[in-house]
């Protein structure tokens, strides 16, 4: 069995199910068994037909013919002894009785041929019946004159006509012995036909026995084959079990899956996908744990740096006063140091905001009002940058749940990002719309846009495409929105520029103040929130 790389389960490409294969194997076994039984039944039926043909066709004919022959043989024997008989009257009486009985036996024999052999027998037996019937009629016809001959004989005996007796005896004896021979031939014919049927039945029986033995052996072979086939079908299951045991022991290394294209293959593939997911989750957990530790350490370091920075800033102001009218170079150096200290203080504040973002206090508020206030707030600086904000708000809008101060911060970050993206000024589109169960705020600039490979990283901490900046603004924005159970995405704007989309869940009916809790499982990790 070949193995394939890890691939998604595809039930549509499944060739045959295990159940279908087992059913097919069972069907093959049943067919083999049915063939054996069927052959046996056919053989038995044929044997029964032979037996019936013999019992109802041939045996009655043979019996009746035997009785007829016995009577005829007796008459033939007695005819020879008539001259020696001391009581001719008794002999005459006996011969009359015997010839009458013979006539009855002829009738019975013919009836057994026509009613038995000709009806129940095979076509060959029917032909034999016709021939026997004709021969029997010939034999009976050959005796047509014997009654008259007997009368002549006994009349001659009564008269003491020895010559007449002898002449009649010769003709009568010839007649009776001829009939005897004819009946003998008939009997031989029936006997040989019975022997032939018996021999054929014996041969057929032997053939049936050999065929049954062969079929039984074949059936056994099919059974063994089916058993082996089923065992082979289920062999991958043992490998899947072994794989599960290995995973239980901690072996999460990817493996090739069984390419069996059946339920076992699907199980193996699904299992490997699960193992891969577990491995990824485990790796992510390790990474998160590591990041959390780093974040905690960074927050501690940042907190410890802020106090010296404050002291440095204060001392720089004192030093600037002391320098007075010192050389311009010295003052220039001092101002450079001051700018760097301020930048460090700003960076540390941003970082601490990200790391120690407080839990939002959720209230049912009107998003449109908040957006108008933020736009009004940034309008002066927008104008200084030659930017215009075009605001569009759907009416009516549902109320959303959010912490006003945090969402304000997030929107400020987005608007300022847009302004910075449009160095030459232009129009920034801001729209507030209702989409499904969310209120969406869309901020679109008409700047140079963000390449697709970079767009996926814009929400990462410390990632920035600008020469200046902390690289924490969008990270904070995403953390805030995620803390509200919403989503923020970055897409390319049609016609150039970038479009940010913030979706906040609408407030449930009668909700006023709700404790903040994460509403989505795909919220970005918050390094500072740990510890």
């Amino acid at each position: 069995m070949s193995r394939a790389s890890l691939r998604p389960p595809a039930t549509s490409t499944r060739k045959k199910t295990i159940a279908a294969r087992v059913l097919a194997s069972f069907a093959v076994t049943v067919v083999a068994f049915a063939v054996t039984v069927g052959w046996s039944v056919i053989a038995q039926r044929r044997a029964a037909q032979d037996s019936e043909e013999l019992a109802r066709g041939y045996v009655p004919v043979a019996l009746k013919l035997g009785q007829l022959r016995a009577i005829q043989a007796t008459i033939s024997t007695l005819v020879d002894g008539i001259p020696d008989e001391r009581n001719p009257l008794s002999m005459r009486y006996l011969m009359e009785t015997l010839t009458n009985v013979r006539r009855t036996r002829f009738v019975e024999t013919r009836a057994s041929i026509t009613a038995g052999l000709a009806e129940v027998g095979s076509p060959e037996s029917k032909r034999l019946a016709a021939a026997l019937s004709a021969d029997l009629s010939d034999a009976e016809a050959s005796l047509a004159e014997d009654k008259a001959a007997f009368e002549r004989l006994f009349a001659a005996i009564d008269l003491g006509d020895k010559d007449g007796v002898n002449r009649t005896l010769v003709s009568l004896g010839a007649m009776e012995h001829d009939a005897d021979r004819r009946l003998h031939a008939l009997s031989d014919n029936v006997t040989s036909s019975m022997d032939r049927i018996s021999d054929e039945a014996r041969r057929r029986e032997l053939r049936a026995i050999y065929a049954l033995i062969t079929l039984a052996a074949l059936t056994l072979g099919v059974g063994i084959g089916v058993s082996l086939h089923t065992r082979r079908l289920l062999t991958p299951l043992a490998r899947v079990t072994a794989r599960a045991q290995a995973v239980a022991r901690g072996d999460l290394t990817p493996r090739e899956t069984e390419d069996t294209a059946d339920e076992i293959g699907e199980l193996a593939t699904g299992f490997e996908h699960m193992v891969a997911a577990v491995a990824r989750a485990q790796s992510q957990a390790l990474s998160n744990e590591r990041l959390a530790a780093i974040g905690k350490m960074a927050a501690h370091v940042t907190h410890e740096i802020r106090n010296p920075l404050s002291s440095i800033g204060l001392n720089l102001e004192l030093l600037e006063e002391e320098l007075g009218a010192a050389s311009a170079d010295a003052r220039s150096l001092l101002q450079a140091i001051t700018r760097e200290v301020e930048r460090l203080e700003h960076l540390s504040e941003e970082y601490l905001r990200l790391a120690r973002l407080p839990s939002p206090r959720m209230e049912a508020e009107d998003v449109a009002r908040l957006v108008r206030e933020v736009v009004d707030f940034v309008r002066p600086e927008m104008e200084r940058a030659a930017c215009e904000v075009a605001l569009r708000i759907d009416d009516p809008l549902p109320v959303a749940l959010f912490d006003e101060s945090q969402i304000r911060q997030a929107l400020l970050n987005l608007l300022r990002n847009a302004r910075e993206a449009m160095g030459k000024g232009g129009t920034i589109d801001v729209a507030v719309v209702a989409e499904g169960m969310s209120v969406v705020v869309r901020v679109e600039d008409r700047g140079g846009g963000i390449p697709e490979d970079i767009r996926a990283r814009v929400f990462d901490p410390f990632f920035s495409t600008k020469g200046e900046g902390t690289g924490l603004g969008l990270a904070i924005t995403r953390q805030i929105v995620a803390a509200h159970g919403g989503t923020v995405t970055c897409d390319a704007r049609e016609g150039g520029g970038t479009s940010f989309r913030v979706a906040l869940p609408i407030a449930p009916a009668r909700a006023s103040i709700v404790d903040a809790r994460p509403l989505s499982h795909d919220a970005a990790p918050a390094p500072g929130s740990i510890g």
Partner: protein
Amino acid sequence: MLEHRRRDLERCVYCPKLCRSACPVSNAEPRETLIPWGKMSMVSFAAHGDVPIDGSHAAPAWACTGCHGCRESCDHRNDVAGTLIEARAALTAHGAGHPAAVDVAAGFDAHDQATRAAMRAHEDRAGAAAKEGADHALLVGCGYARRAGDVVDDAIAAGAALAGGSVSVLRGCCGAPLHLAGDEPRFRAHAARFAAEVAGARTLLVVDAGCAVTLRTRYAAAGAPLRPSVELVVERAARDLSALETVGGEPARYHDPCQLGRGLGVYEAPRAVLTRALGHAPAEFDTRRAHATCSGAGGLVPKTMPDVARAMTRTRADEHLRAGGGKVITACASSLRAFRREGLDADDVVTWIARALRARPA
């Protein structure tokens, strides 16, 4: 008709007739219808409906002495005699009984009364030997009672001596003539009466072999089983030969009765008894034991075919005379009577048993 005998009948009908010369009847009357094949064939044809059931076709069934001679020549040991005697009953039931046999049946009651009267006279003469209610009952037989009275006295004496002093003498006939005549209903009725009559006895001693065969085989078949055990007097005597004294006598030849020999298989007992009583072994016929020639006195043949029966007796007598003559001793009332009618000096073996017992020292 005779469906239960069909196999026996067909065995003969389709047989090559090897028993042709074994039948004393057809030997005496050479007719094909009288050989065993002819008799059985006629019965078979009648049973099969091939011939009408009338007197002429039924007559061969009465041409049998019941001697079982043909059986000894048959590889199948076919029971011809038994079949023919059963056929008599069937043929009689169909109104085709032999006239002489019908007469025998019709006169049976008178025959039984005559037998009883004769036996009563002998019983009176027997004195203490005859004791009503004794453990042992004695059936002498109608053949002796009516035709051989001398044997009856000897039989009572011998039976009483062998029984320990006295016997209860049964006066009536066993009913064998009814059975042989084919009157089966009356035979059954008579058998039932006779069985009731002897029910009080412990042992039934029987003198005549024909009576013994009837009691041992036909009574049970007729639904009248006997309570006492049936024992032949000659067999009882042979059991203790020391009780017999040798009385001596002229040369004697023993004739095997058909019913005692081929019927019951008793060949040695009479010879042993006679050897003891005579002081020497009896002379033998040329045909003896299982091949002994029938005397022609049985099976009602003396009634149905008297001439043939007489010829048969003559044949046996001639055989005796050719062998040297002298006394003939038998153990069958019918044979005894036939031989005496033929002029032979004939005794019954029971007479010699009585003589040997009487000669015993007191």
